[in-house]
């Protein structure tokens, strides 16, 4: 029980945040999709297929973002043994897998018309695939121990090791000459995308982030509940 002291504070916070994040994310994603599919102009060379971008790119960003937050909270849990950090990292993983998968799927859907093939083994694509495997490995390792505490610790180390992959994904397009196109929005200087394309993109990205937040709150909540139940059971089981 003593471990659950400050998760309780989280629960209170979560209860306050949840309705807002949930509704807002729906609104953003809805608006973003609308702008993306009906308002924004088709690309002069990519034609309508460019609309895939509005799902592909934000999910790609999320794939990276979620892993980053997962790695950070893993570090926190290892250094300060903060029980909440474990739960957050654990709760993030499935979301990350989801976004990574969407990124891969939309990417290869896009690749068919653009590159004439579903899949090419270039640096960007491969590194994202590795990210996908890393997420899966994290989840597998986290569930591989009877003792949940050990699972959390072990997978935290894995998350940190895997963080090496993030810069590779991000800069693969610059380091190697790949089919995949380099960053045009997330550049340090001004974005090289017209605002009519930029807005839906950002809306989607924002909506996805809020979605992530929502799922996070929900899952951490259920994790805490599960921990409570486990404690009660063990206490009943006695010495």
């Amino acid at each position, binding site marked *: 029980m*003593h*471990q659950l002291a400050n998760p309780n504070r989280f629960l209170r916070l979560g209860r306050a945040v949840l309705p807002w994040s949930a509704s807002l994310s729906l609104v953003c994603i809805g608006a973003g999709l609308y702008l993306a599919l009906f308002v924004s102009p088709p690309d002069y060379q990519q034609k309508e297929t460019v609309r895939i971008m509005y799902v592909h790119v934000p999910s790609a960003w999320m794939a990276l973002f979620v892993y980053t937050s997962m790695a950070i909270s893993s570090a926190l849990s290892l250094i300060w043994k903060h029980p909440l950090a474990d739960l957050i990292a654990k709760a993030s993983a499935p979301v990350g897998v989801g976004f990574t998968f969407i990124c891969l799927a939309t990417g290869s859907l896009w690749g068919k018309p653009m590159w004439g093939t579903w899949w090419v083994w270039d640096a960007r694509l491969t590194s994202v695939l590795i990210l996908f495997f890393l997420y899966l490995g994290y989840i597998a390792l986290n569930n591989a121990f009877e*003792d*949940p*505490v050990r699972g959390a610790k072990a997978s935290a180390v894995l998350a940190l090791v895997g963080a090496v992959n993030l810069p590779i994904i991000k800069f693969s397009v610059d380091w190697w000459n790949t089919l995949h196109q380099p960053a045009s929005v997330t550049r340090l200087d001004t974005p090289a995308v017209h605002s009519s394309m930029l807005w839906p993109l950002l809306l989607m990205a924002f909506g996805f982030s809020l979605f992530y937040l929502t799922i996070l709150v929900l899952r951490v909540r259920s994790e805490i509940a599960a*921990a409570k139940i*486990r*404690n009660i059971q*063990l*206490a*009943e*089981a*006695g*010495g």
Partner: protein
Amino acid sequence: MYPPLSGENLMCVRGDRLVFNGLCFSVGAGCVLMLTGRNGSGKTSLLRLMAGIMAPAGGTLRYYGIDCHENPNGHRADIHYVAHYDAIKSALTVRENLAFWVELHGGGDVDSGLDAFGLLALAELPAQFLSAGQRRRLVLARLAAIDAGVWLLDEPSVALDTASLESLRNLIVGHCADGGAVIAATHSDLGFTDAVTLDVSHFAPKGQVAP
């Protein structure tokens, strides 16, 4: 003058359940402390805390008055932990098995270790051919071969025949005479009439059904 090992209201959590709480103890130089208590009361857990394998969930463990949390190494280097398991490599001979641990602790006397439990005759036998008690004796031989101040023994007498039990007893007596400290968890008494006993069961959290 601080005791070699002492603990102030130690708390132990295994998995995520509380095993014992508020446990205090102190073992002076030349003393034997017997840990008793029903199965699952936390003797092994306590020994693992003392060995510094697990960190206590609460309370402090002191080695000659210094908090072990502050310098884990000083305290580790001076400890022998004899566990339920025997870290024996069946591919190596009896001597090689012991010799490795001696090397790892930076020196010691292999032969006297083997001799202390009458293993010299078996020294060149691959450890896989040892019987339960012979294995146990090989584990205990570390005590005689490598000198450390604090001995943590988890049911050391298991599978020992009367002769070996006698030599173990002598070893402990000798160690105490040299000002060492011994903490042994056991169900069958080892026959140290003057030893202090600590019943771990007393520190079980309140209102827990006995298993």
